[in-house]
């Protein structure tokens, strides 16, 4: 078991192997993710019951919650990749961080935007300096810093290392930001607003929500593979294996 895992890990580091395997996986993941998103959206938007307090507005939850949850998961996965890159110098980890950062930033932005649209009718304001909103905003800024750092180095390897360092420093700092924002927030406003108000969410609402979360995770997997393939093909366009592959098609 350990040996197969180790083999798999070593294979992951190889561009040609990854390119070949991801090409086979992509159609399935793509169809799965898009069908999950379509099903959960239709279910959530038309068939799940109306919320007693918020009315139809609550339905934005089917976009908001998956986006926010995936945005954090992407950052943590990127920090694991950053550690892998700095410790084992695995080139694929650099590709992973570079490809996933824009996706993470996009989903953080979707989360912030959908939250603002949701907040307008329910809280009466587009933006509140609530602890969670602020830490999500800081997460978005970290993503922007990572994306911005990509272009400041001429050599690919230096850029990957720099970005890995930032990602790791960011992941060390993120819990501190979260906690300090919590303390700051409790001084200014008592817990009058709580995003997770619907703890007693009914099953008819929960199932499409879980489906949409699953769909978004698969969508990130799908787009991540696409972006990584694109990144690999720009990095390896002059290599023998890539020329052979493209001449075959």
């Amino acid at each position, binding site marked *: 078991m350990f040996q197969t895992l180790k083999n798999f890990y070593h294979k992951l580091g190889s561009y040609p192997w990854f390119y070949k395997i991801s090409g086979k996986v992509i159609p399935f993941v793509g169809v799965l993710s898009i069908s999950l998103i379509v099903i959960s959206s239709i279910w959530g938007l038309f068939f799940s019951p109306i919320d007693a307090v918020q009315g139809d507005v609550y339905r934005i939850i089917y976009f908001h919650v998956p986006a926010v949850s995936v945005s954090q998961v992407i950052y943590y996965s990127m920090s694991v990749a950053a550690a892998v890159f700095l410790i084992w110098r695995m080139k694929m980890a650099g590709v992973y961080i570079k490809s996933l950062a824009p996706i993470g930033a996009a989903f953080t932005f979707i989360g912030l935007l959908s939250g603002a649209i949701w907040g307008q009718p329910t809280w009466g304001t587009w933006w509140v300096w609530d602890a969670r909103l602020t830490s999500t905003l800081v997460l978005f800024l970290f993503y922007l810093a990572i994306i911005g*750092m990509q272009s*400041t180095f001429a050599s690919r390897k*230096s850029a990957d290392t720099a970005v890995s*360092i930032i990602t790791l420093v960011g992941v060390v700092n993120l819990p501190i930001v979260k906690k300090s924002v919590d303390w700051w927030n409790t001084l200014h406003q008592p817990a009058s607003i709580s995003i997770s108000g619907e703890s007693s969410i009914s099953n008819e609402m929960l199932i499409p929500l879980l489906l949409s979360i699953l769909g978004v995770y698969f969508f990130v997997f799908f787009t991540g593979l696409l972006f990584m393939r694109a990144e690999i093909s720009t990095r390896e366009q002059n290599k023998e294996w890539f020329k052979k592959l493209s001449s075959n098609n």
Partner: protein
Amino acid sequence: MIYFIKILKKEFLIYSRKSSSFISPVVFFLISISLYPIGISNDPGILKNLAPGLIWITVLLSTLISFQNIFSEDYEDGSIELLLASGQNLSLIVLIKIFVNWIFSCLPIIILSVLSVFLLYFPQEGLKPLIISLLIGTPTICLFGALAGALSLGKNSITGPALMLPLSLPVLILGTQAINYSLNGINFSSNILLLTAILVFLLPIILFASVGALKLHFN
């Protein structure tokens, strides 16, 4: 050991002979502090409430002027390369550089922040937490500045500040909160302890990361 003392002396000499390194943050601080009453309001009641945040934000922004100084000149004249090749403990050298930069860019501002008592009608009893929180909080900001400066060496881009400011958020929150606590008669020592904890926790991490970032420029 003698080697590090020599580096310390050298850094002190460089900073003290280049007057712009410590004058420009001070000038920036004084100009901004005197702009707030003009731009916002000259009402003492309003300014008094805003003062802790205004002072802290201005200190944070004035470090943006000086953080490039930590490594940029050594990078341009090539002495960083020699330090990297010297085989000495790089983290210690970086620490010395950050320390001297802090003394010349942050310490004058911290002393001048006393002026806010007159300019921003800042209550005198808030001075103690203001000075303590600045003394403990600004080294952390200088650390972030060193990392940002090491990563964006030789480039005049927004990435340095874009990296530094989000990282400094906890320090800003805890620092202003300490002042507000003490003005409201609440014990502020927990915030000072947390600021110290952040400094001690991040010091080795950031030093390590900055050394890694410096090495990137000389592959």
